[in-house]
């Protein structure tokens, strides 16, 4: 079954009343499929982001996407999906940052602060230069995400990135984590610590860029952090940590896409997704405060 015929089938079932009414719209089906890919990948990878204390980095890469979009439009790429510049610029941003972190000895937060501000200044300058040539709503979509513009092409890019990230991150999950606990011990156990560091930066960058369309440049990094942070509050083992993070990220993405449509709210999808994730975090914090078992240890 081709993707088009699958989508048509879902739309037909929604029109016939077997599925929620919102699924009668093709763009909603596209967005939900995107959400089903984004949620588990961001939620799972997010656990490593939290373990490695890379939260600020993932935020910075998301913001770099703004500059990537500006460069893409300037170079004549389609403004609905300037993937060449997006991936190119953000990968350059992440790899250069990691390279300088290794070479200069500056702490990651200091370097990210420098890179983030310079990149935002570049992006703002380029976007203002382009402001006369493009529809200002495009900027809004780039910044905060939009479910209206997710195309079959975007889904294909997302699917390729999701498969690639899962295929690399799952077999290397233990090694990526081990490298952050003690690089020397990791090296003795055969882990190529520096190579894995670069690989992790590339994976975070790829998944961030592929998710920009739905969540938006400003907020995409947050979905790598909030679900994992919430899961960390209520879990007692890595199993709980990983799967609760995946569930929260997937639920947040799907609800964030659907709720504004169902309730006809003028809220961008990215903002709605992060608000749902934020509510999950608040509930997790509350649960931890109220349930003593979540604070301590089983004997």
């Amino acid at each position, binding site marked *: 079954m081709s993707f088009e015929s699958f989508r048509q089938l879902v739309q037909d079932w929604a029109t016939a009343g077997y599925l929620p009414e919102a699924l009668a719209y093709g763009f909603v089906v596209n967005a939900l499929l995107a959400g089903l890919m984004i949620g588990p990948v961001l939620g799972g990878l997010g656990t490593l982001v939290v*373990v490695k204390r890379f939260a600020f980095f993932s935020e910075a890469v998301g913001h770099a996407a703004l500059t990537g979009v500006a460069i893409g439009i300037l170079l004549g790429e389609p403004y609905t999906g300037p993937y060449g510049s997006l991936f190119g610029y953000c990968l350059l941003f992440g790899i250069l940052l990691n390279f300088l972190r290794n070479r200069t000895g500056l702490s990651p937060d200091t370097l990210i602060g420098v890179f983030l501000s310079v990149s935002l200044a570049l992006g703002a300058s380029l976007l203002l230069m382009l402001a006369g040539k493009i529809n200002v709503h495009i900027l809004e979509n780039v910044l905060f995400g939009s479910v209206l513009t997710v195309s079959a092409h975007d889904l294909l890019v997302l699917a390729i990135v999701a498969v690639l990230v899962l295929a690399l991150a799952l077999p290397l*999950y*233990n090694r990526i984590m081990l490298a952050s606990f*003690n690089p020397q011990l990791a090296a*003795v*156990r055969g882990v190529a610590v520096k190579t894995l560091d670069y690989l992790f930066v590339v994976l975070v960058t790829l998944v961030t860029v592929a998710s920009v369309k739905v969540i938006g440049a400003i907020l995409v990094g947050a979905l790598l952090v909030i679900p994992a942070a919430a899961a960390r509050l209520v879990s007692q*083992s*890595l199993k709980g940590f990983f*799967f609760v993070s995946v569930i929260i990220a997937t639920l947040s993405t799907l609800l964030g896409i659907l709720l504004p449509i169902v309730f006809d709210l003028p809220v961008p999808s990215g903002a709605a997704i992060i608000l749902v994730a934020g509510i999950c975090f608040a509930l997790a914090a509350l649960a931890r405060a109220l349930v003593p078992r979540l604070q301590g*240890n089983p004997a």
Partner: protein
Amino acid sequence: MTAAANLTSACGPRIEFDGIDLTLGRTRILENVRFSVAPGSVHAIVGPNGGGKSSLIKTLLGQMPHQGQLTLHWPGEREVIGYVPQALEFDRGLPMTVDDFMAAMCQRRPAFLGLSRRVRPAIDAALARVGMLDKRKRRMGALSGGERQRVLLAQGLIPEPQLLVLDEPMSALDEAGIQVFEQLLHGWRQAGTTVLWIEHDLEAVLRLADRVTGLSRQVLFDAPPAQALTPERLLGLFSVHPRSESLA
């Protein structure tokens, strides 16, 4: 049992440090370090903080570009090094149990999927040897320093090493933990494992090591502990700041 008595049954390597020089920036960390570690022996390294002990370990583990010759003479095909670091850098609130940690160390299968059937018996045995089997479901961050040190010792047992490098393994251990460590040392001796052991507790070195090297940028002594750990030598080792000389 002495190192010499182990020579026939040793499965661990002989290590030769031959004129090792290490300079970081403008500071000379190691200078013409020359000594050897007998196969199957328990060899302690003592010295002041900043004396180059950890740098020597890093050099041995291939983590430091150095000058001079460092040779490991392995007795056979198998070349397994175990390493027990002094501490781990991790978020104490991370929901990672002892089992999760051991899985992350010892198996490819993602640790969040639980212990793999293949490594589970080895992990069970290692945790039993360090007396942590009943605490395997506890979070790593909630363990005491001594308990965490025991778990670090347990990971060093998998896969069974022929050379074991220990970085101050006794620093956080309580009395029961010290007994566990001594039993492990006994086991390594019997198995012919070469043990290179950085230690601050000179009484323990005197009691447990076959040979001791005093390191403060240079090798100040290298002899059996009973001969080496005399008050004069220790005064010489700990009274001069090793980093007082930097390159002109």
